[in-house]
């Protein structure tokens, strides 16, 4: 099973996949050889503890080392939000997250991992977020590559995705930005910095709601560098614990970051921030400008919502939403332009502060997807994780450019691919010797016709001479003789005619041999 994510937009059963489609009566472990998680985002791993500890999957789970380290933090974060805000009791617990993580087998990049006798997997660098990987899954001579989410252009802390020319039978690729050629990330970054700078310059406060780990760190590097360059003194705060945590993981997995960070790491660690300080609840009431990173990212509970309520009424302030917000959350409401929000107890909160949306998500755009298809040279492509209309455009483009079949099944739809698997067949020495005796030397690259009997024994196929086949199978040889009567009208003598017929038949039978 590739990834085991959740939908944050639902609060009921619909948030997790319906695993009963795998089996209704049997044990899940009997139906799945392993689960592979591409990266730590919740839409890719959020259902994992539910799947392994509540539904009952008990087999191996594969992910990279950074994903194994960071996954539980995000799962914990989400669990706490679900239990805190929604007051849900029937949700996975901390212990379940830990027990689930104990079932994880961590893999290194480019390491071939043998899942069982038949199945092997291999991880490739995917960019996107720390530890994100694409996986090649191989059974015999057939293989599939699953990209997860990936990014073909390097960003401030991560490198670009890369895969070798592995020519899989199928490439399953995400297609979030299937029709978009993204404007340069530099432009978006400049825009972000400009907006933050302008706000603090006029004495306003900037709130950036974020999730614990991931994009927040990228934005921190961005602000830190800018503050340094501009020699700004306005304080930047981050919920305590998160910067240390991020620092810890980025240090631990420095090999997963981009070349620049790796090179400069010895002189100066990019994740040791000079300007970004730990936040205390009381700071929110301080006068003057400031920038605050606070969790959670959708403004639906906790600290970020509390600060938002304090600052919303002042038009000098600004909130920058760097990610997706689920319907019903304050984040969703303000992004859709609502300015009067009904809060608990029928209070109405008037939002006068500026609301900005900034996309920093690191997915491959259409150009990047085409680039990856070109790199891997698959026989077929399957598009997932995108919108049907956009996928359709990309599908046509891939089919035209690479002359391969491209599919875009809806959720739950089955696609059947024709493949021509190679089946190894052993040839008996006797048969080969006989062929050699006929004076034909073997040539490796030239196909050659070989006559023999194909025997299947213990799931192995062998080509042997018919005599050997009879011997091995303990069968007696049977000869079939066909006779027929032919009337010949020949004026020659009977004996002469017979001799001619005989020599003719002899020559044709020799030819046949």
């Amino acid at each position: 099973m590739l990834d085991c994510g959740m939908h944050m937009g639902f609060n009921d059963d619909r948030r997790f996949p319906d695993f009963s489609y795998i089996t209704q009566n049997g044990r899940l472990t009997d139906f799945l050889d392993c689960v592979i998680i591409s990266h730590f985002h919740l839409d890719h791993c959020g259902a994992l503890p539910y799947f392994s500890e509540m539904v009952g999957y008990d087999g191996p789970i594969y992910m990279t080392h950074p994903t194994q380290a960071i996954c539980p933090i995000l799962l914990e974060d989400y669990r706490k939000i679900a239990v805190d805000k929604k007051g849900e009791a029937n949700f996975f617990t901390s212990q379940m997250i830990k027990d689930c993580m104990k079932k994880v087998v961590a893999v290194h990049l480019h390491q071939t991992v043998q899942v069982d006798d038949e199945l092997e997997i291999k991880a490739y660098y995917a960019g996107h977020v720390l530890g994100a990987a694409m996986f090649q899954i191989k059974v015999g001579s057939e293989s599939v590559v699953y990209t997860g989410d990936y990014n073909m252009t390097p960003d401030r802390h991560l490198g670009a995705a890369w895969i070798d020319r592995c020519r899989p039978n199928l490439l399953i690729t995400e297609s979030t930005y299937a029709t978009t050629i993204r404007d340069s990330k530099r432009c978006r970054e400049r825009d972000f910095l400009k907006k933050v700078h302008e706000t603090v310059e006029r004495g306003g406060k900037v709130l950036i709601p974020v999730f614990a780990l991931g994009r927040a760190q990228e934005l921190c590097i961005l602000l830190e560098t800018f503050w340094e360059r501009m020699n700004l003194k306005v304080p930047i705060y981050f919920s305590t614990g998160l910067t240390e945590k991020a620092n810890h993981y980025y240090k631990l997995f420095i090999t997963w970051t981009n070349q620049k960070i790796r090179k400069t790491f010895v002189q100066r660690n990019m994740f040791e921030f000079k300007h970004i300080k730990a936040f205390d609840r009381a700071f929110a009431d301080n006068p003057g400008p400031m920038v605050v990173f606070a969790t959670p990212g959708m403004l639906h509970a906790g600290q970020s919502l509390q600060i938002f309520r304090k600052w919303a009424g002042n038009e000098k302030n600004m909130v920058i939403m760097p990610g997706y917000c689920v319907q019903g959350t304050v984040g969703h409401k303000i992004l859709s332009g609502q300015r009067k929000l009904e809060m608990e107890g029928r209070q109405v909160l008037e939002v006068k502060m500026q609301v900005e949306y900034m996309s920093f998500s690191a997915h491959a755009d259409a150009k990047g997807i085409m680039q990856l298809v070109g790199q891997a040279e698959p026989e077929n492509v399957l598009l997932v994780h995108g919108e049907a209309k956009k996928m359709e455009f990309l599908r046509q483009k891939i089919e035209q450019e690479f002359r391969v079949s491209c599919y875009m099944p809806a959720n739950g739809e089955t696609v059947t691919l024709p493949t021509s698997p190679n089946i190894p067949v052993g040839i008996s020495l006797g048969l080969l010797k006989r062929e050699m005796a006929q004076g034909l030397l073997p040539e490796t690259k030239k196909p050659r016709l070989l006559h023999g009997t194909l025997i299947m024994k213990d799931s192995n196929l062998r080509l042997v001479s018919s005599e050997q086949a009879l011997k091995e199978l303990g069968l007696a040889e049977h000869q079939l003789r066909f006779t027929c009567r032919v009337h010949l009208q020949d004026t020659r003598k009977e004996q002469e005619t017979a001799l001619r017929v005989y020599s003719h038949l002899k020559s044709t039978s020799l030819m046949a041999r």
Partner: protein
Amino acid sequence: MDPECSRLLPALCAALADPRQPLADDTCLEKLLDWFKTVTEAESSLLLLQENPALVELLSHVLKSQDMSSRVLSFSLRLAGTFAAQEDCFLYLQQGELLLGLFGEGGPQCWAAWSVPTVRSGWIQGLRSLAQHPCALHFLADSGAVDTIFSLQGDPSLFVASAASQLLVHTLALSMQAGATGCSGLWDGVWPACAQKIMGHLEESLQSTAAPQVTQALNVLTSTFGRCHSPWTETLWGQLCPLVARLLERTPIPAAHSLVDLLLSVARSPALSSSHGRLWEAVAQALRCLSPMQAGSLALGMLKLPHCPQALRVQAFGVLLQPLACVVKATAQAPGPPGCSMWPPGWLDGAEGSSLTVDTLLSSKSACVGILCQTLAQLEELQPLPQRPAPWPQEPLLGAAVTILRLCHGSATSSSSGGGRLCATLAGCVRVQRAALDFLGTLSQETRSQELEKEVFAVLSEYLGSPDSSPTVLKKAFQTTLRWLLSSPRTPGCPDLGPQPLLFLRELFPVLQKRLCSPSWEVRDSVLEFLTQLSRHWGGQADFRRALLASEVPTLTQQLLQDPESYVRASAVAAAGQLSSRGLQAAPDSPEHPQAQQGLLGELLCILSTDSEGFPRRAVVQVFTEWLRDGHADVARDTEWFIATVLQVVSQDLDWEVRVQGLELAQVFLVQRLGQPRCPYMVALPEAASATPIPEVLQSLCRLRLFDFAFRALLDCDRPVAQKACELLLFLKDKTAMCGGLQEAGDIPGSASGQVTLQRWRAGEQGQLPGDLQPEAMLALLRSTDLEGLQARLAQSSDHMEKSPQSLLQDMLATVGVLGENEADCY
């Protein structure tokens, strides 16, 4: 419907009907449907449509304009079905020919949008909703919908195909229900037209040579027998049983999984008691001819039935035992391992599948691993059931489990060719190891001979000590070990461990010592969890204490409080706390060492105030709460200082769960001082003699700043903290209700500013209570705060605003037109 929602509906319907207006979020339409379902459950759909004509306009518009987005089309089909579930509304929509247009042959089925699975799914779900009354049944038959449902059973979309099958089951049941006559509701023997059509289709499918068609028919029947228990199902089975039996004669047997499911579903049906004869014949045949993997599930299902005939039970149990018997037989040495040749007489006699099982076991590694894991899991499931076969072959099963574990571990050898192949196949196989350890754990619940117990502990020792054991296997080995230790027979009247476990434990500690230094955090964590359990159960026993203290386990445990992995630190906190409770903590190596001087309490306080991760901090507060409950010496020495220090640190913690646990600790303290909370149903008893006089307690609460901590928590932005604080203060209010202090709140110094703070808090602002309040002021504040009202508000969960239908409609309307770049940027 709420008037505000009614006001918003026309605009929303107009937006939905406009194909140029994209919708932000798929979830919105789902939530909208959920809301309509709730509304129609409570009030008349007809009235709803009449009062909100925009809804019918939307449905009509969908019919007219075929360029509607597939999401809105699917939504409209489902919405129409929801309304038409009520008969009068169905007729109303029928009059306008809306239903025929939406669900009839000329409807969406002919549109280009039909190629989108969401639309087909919406069509089925719409029909499923409306199929609630006889009119709907006629509609289904006359509109040609049933034929479309038949074809959708083979849909490439898993969701559509499954929903189509479920709809057939529902239609069949509804049709038979409608055909029932008389006040008894009994079926009169004539199949209604719709049911006849479905029956015909099922019969045809069962005779088909195409496996998918057979599977579809079997799945429909499985659901039918699973859900419908009316008398007509018996006739249905009577009619279809020969066809099902004929499937078993085919080679290979088609759709074996589904066939097993059907047989089990029929066997479980309470409506089929009198026609079980033919069923048992079919089951017996299936057990004979299905592959061991498929027969296993059927066998287990049969053994779970309370009314399964004995002969069939014997056959079924034989199927389950067969793979283990084969393993034991293939690896048996002379003399064999204990118990291996003691299978109960009769169980394996008629096992025709024996050679088939051997073939499967030896054919390939994956087949061997698959069947062994399945068998072990099935026997594990069967063992605790009251209807399990008797006598339960405990000893041979134990022998088999031990043999399998040894084969996997490489410590069993076999001279036979089959045994040799098994050794090679199973060596190092993690899946089988885990399944066998789970099974072995289950077997601990039974009586056993000393000799076998010795064997079990020996094999567990091998696993716990082996450097080859994977972390997941090791975790299972610990769990199994604990189960065996807990169930070990003890000398009557003596709580001590038996000789066997004791011997085992002595050898265990050096192993644990080694494992605590493992480079794998999973292993270190599992050992610490195991150690906590061990000391919880046997911490008071002399032999256990001696063995533990002779090892370096306590020292290593304390060292792991500094582990780089936070999970391990948390487990080390729990283990060290438990050991300390039992007086089993590490002896200080050098008294000059600062850590030794500081003691465990100091070290835990340090973790609580400095650890960057929440797990260890939470574990510390849990340990402290346990220590307080148990009267731990370090706590009892100066309880007030202890409480004040912990609460001060906890109140600053950013993790709300730590703060909640801090409140829990405070509550334990209060209960110790003031006595248990009053139960409203309990006869009033005089307060426990140990409870301290209330004024004295209040003084100490002020000194400890416990009031301050609890009132601050009431202002917490995280709901569970406020909830817990509310609970604690209510307890306090209840306990102090009879206490003096008759002054009005406003007259007491400090109380007024406290009130102001609370008012500010009510207005959604943050505030702080004055630092040095006196007990009387606190008491007045407690009495004047509407804690009951607050508790009720907090219990509502704070997301009622998000979930309200107005909020949903407003959000959907607000999104119209403003969608830009935002939509695609998910993570």
